[in-house]
């Protein structure tokens, strides 16, 4: 037992702060009266958030966990069906196609988006006139990007004889409209996501500012070329930021909804090519009235993203270097 040694400093500390040592010894954890008051006050201040969390997040989540094992059509009471939703999911071709579409979007889109964000962040890290303007300009798409109006504008831009098609025609590339073409809609969706690289860019920029200049100087003295400096100094020093952005963007990409819903007219069109996981979930829930199935899909997504995040965390030990690490 290590109780005694653990308590010794605690007792000293409470003695210093003027509380009764006997009290702290009995409970095992030193909690002076004044602190108790603080705790209550703290919870009182926290209560608006706490109420919202329990009422609007935790409650619905638990409800959906229950519904995931039921057949619920919104009109009649849910009927317990056990694992039937999951077995149906396993045999549902449209479900697997939505998984495939979403994975392509995440696995292709996220790295491109991060690469673009990093590249622009490095450009903006140079001290030059007007960087403030460019920073805002590059960030702007992210501010408006998730909005419905942008998705509508993109629809128009990528239509037959729209600006994109027109420009490509000038170069002799005749692809026609992208919106109605099942094989071009995914590149367009990825482009739309990449275009909104502002948030990771700002974080990268902050990370770049934190890389000590002397490391670059030392590398220069050793005769390193820019590419070498990037690989051996920038990337390792930036790895915690890269990891953070990767995790966040991956989770966001899995949840893409608004743009896919607008561009695919809410039905996963054209030809099911924008039938993203969340769009399919929405269709099942609100167009087909299969709330139980949709709830099961939501939980499968949560677990899948959780597992992927866990894997990322495990691999991060090998490539993420924190300042002050002994490695």
């Amino acid at each position, binding site marked *: 037992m290590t109780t005694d040694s653990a308590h010794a400093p605690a007792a000293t500390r409470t003695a210093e702060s003027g509380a009764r040592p006997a009290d702290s010894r009995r409970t095992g954890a030193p909690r002076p009266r004044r602190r108790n008051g603080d705790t209550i006050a703290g919870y009182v201040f926290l209560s608006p958030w706490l109420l919202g969390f329990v009422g609007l997040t935790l409650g619905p989540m638990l409800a959906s966990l229950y519904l995931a094992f039921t057949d619920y059509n919104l009109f009649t009471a849910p009927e317990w069906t056990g694992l039937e939703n999951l077995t149906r999911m396993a045999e549902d071709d449209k479900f697997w196609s939505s998984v495939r579409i979403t994975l392509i979007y995440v696995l292709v889109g996220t790295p491109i988006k991060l690469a673009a964000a990093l590249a622009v962040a490095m450009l903006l890290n140079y001290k030059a006139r007007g960087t403030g303007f460019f920073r805002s300009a590059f960030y702007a798409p992210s501010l408006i990007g998730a909005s419905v109006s942008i998705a509508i504008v993109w629809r128009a831009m990528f239509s037959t004889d729209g600006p994109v098609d027109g420009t490509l025609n000038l170069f002799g590339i005749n692809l026609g409209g992208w919106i109605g073409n099942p094989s071009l809609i995914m590149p367009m969706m990825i482009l739309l996501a990449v275009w909104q690289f502002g948030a990771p860019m700002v974080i990268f920029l902050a990370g770049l500012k934190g890389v000590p200049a002397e490391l670059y100087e030392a590398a220069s003295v050793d005769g390193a070329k820019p590419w070498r400096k990037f690989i051996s100094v920038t990337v390792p020093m930036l790895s915690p930021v890269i990891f953070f952005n990767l995790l966040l963007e991956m989770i966001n990409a899995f949840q893409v909804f608004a743009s896919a819903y607008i561009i695919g007219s809410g039905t996963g069109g054209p*030809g099911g090519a924008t039938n993203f996981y969340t769009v399919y979930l929405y269709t099942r829930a609100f167009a087909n009235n299969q709330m139980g199935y949709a709830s099961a899909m939501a939980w499968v997504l949560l677990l899948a993203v959780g597992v992927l995040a866990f894997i990322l965390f495990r691999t991060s030990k090998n490539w993420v270097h924190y300042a002050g690490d002994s490695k």
Partner: protein
Amino acid sequence: MFRTLSRRTLTGVAALAATGLVLTGCGGGGDEPAALDTEEQITLNYTFWGNDDRAARYDQAITAFEEKFPNITINDTFTDYPSYWEKRQTEAAGGGLPDVMQFDYTYLRQYGDNGLLLNLEEYFDNGVTTDAIDESLLTTGKLEDGTFAIPTGYSAWSVFQNPGLLAEAGVEPYEGGTSWEDYNTYMAAVTEAGGGTVYGGTDTTQRIQDFELKLRQDGQELFTEEGELNFTQEELADHWKEGQENRDKVTVPQSKLEEINPVSGFGGNLTTSEMSWSNFLGGYLGDSGAEEITIVAPPTSNPDEKDLYRKVGLMQAASSSTEHPEAAAAFVDFLINSPEVGEIFGATLGIPASETQLEGANLEGPDKAVKDYLDSVEDRIGDSPAAPVAGFGAIEQTFWDLGKSIGLGSVTPDDAAQQFFDEASVTLGN
């Protein structure tokens, strides 16, 4: 869309809290509903689906109603058809349906059987006048426990054509009511003359109504009396395969239609003809900006068969949880019967079901054309199919989505038929 939803949800919650008290008071049974109070200030929420044209008409109708009932204020909102039902489903589950709603026959059973709609029968001849409404149309709103919606009017499946575009293409219009070969020849001629900008029509196998029409021409229905699918997977696959030749060479490419969605190919001036319900005429005029649109009978493989039917589409219904059932019934009555509303809407909600409204409608121009069309196909109009099964809305949408996917080449007719049957069996609960 989410902003309006959340605001409505909030008012819904408030309304729900309030109706809890009202319901306990009214639920005693048997009592005569109270007469409409003309002193109390009442606000009713009303919602409908449609386009700007319809919204402008509703604005006028609501103004007329508010003049007649100065103590009642109507708050109206509208959306397009698919999101309309998505919102209603959520509200139905949360208990916050609007007081009065534009309703669809397709969803009647689902809502009516689950106690979500006000039984209007309690207000017959006591707020809602039914004398002027054609009996066969009135009964379409009837379920086992009462009458839960009243049709605004009726329509029938038809072929629309755009004479302006046809003149440009230099092709004679389709005369209507002849063989499918004639119609296909007509479409092919337009597409050839259109040079890739104008097409003769849209895939005539894409929608469930297309399939229903062909089934009825063979003396068959979509559903059995027990509400099960009345055709085989092979028959469906064959139906879709029949359209392949037209899809390859004649009808407007689906990729072009995806771009202009939710406007249709005909509404977007991409095609010179399209099959749809006859009450779409007003909407088509608005969407296309065409000066004139004509309406003729669909082609048929069997002229002796009564393949068409009077389709009750739009209805008006009230929520069972409304705080002001008398006011809601009065508004429904006004929308169904009043001559003013007839004058405002013409035939855009179908040819009015109520005689008084039909007289007020004073049909002229395009509306007259719809009425003339319906009169002209009298011989082909047979019995209406049984009330749509619960979940028909979802089945109809699935059919259309698959039809579009076939058009894009992303699924074969055989696979689509398989998917349709899988989906239908889940929806119909087999």
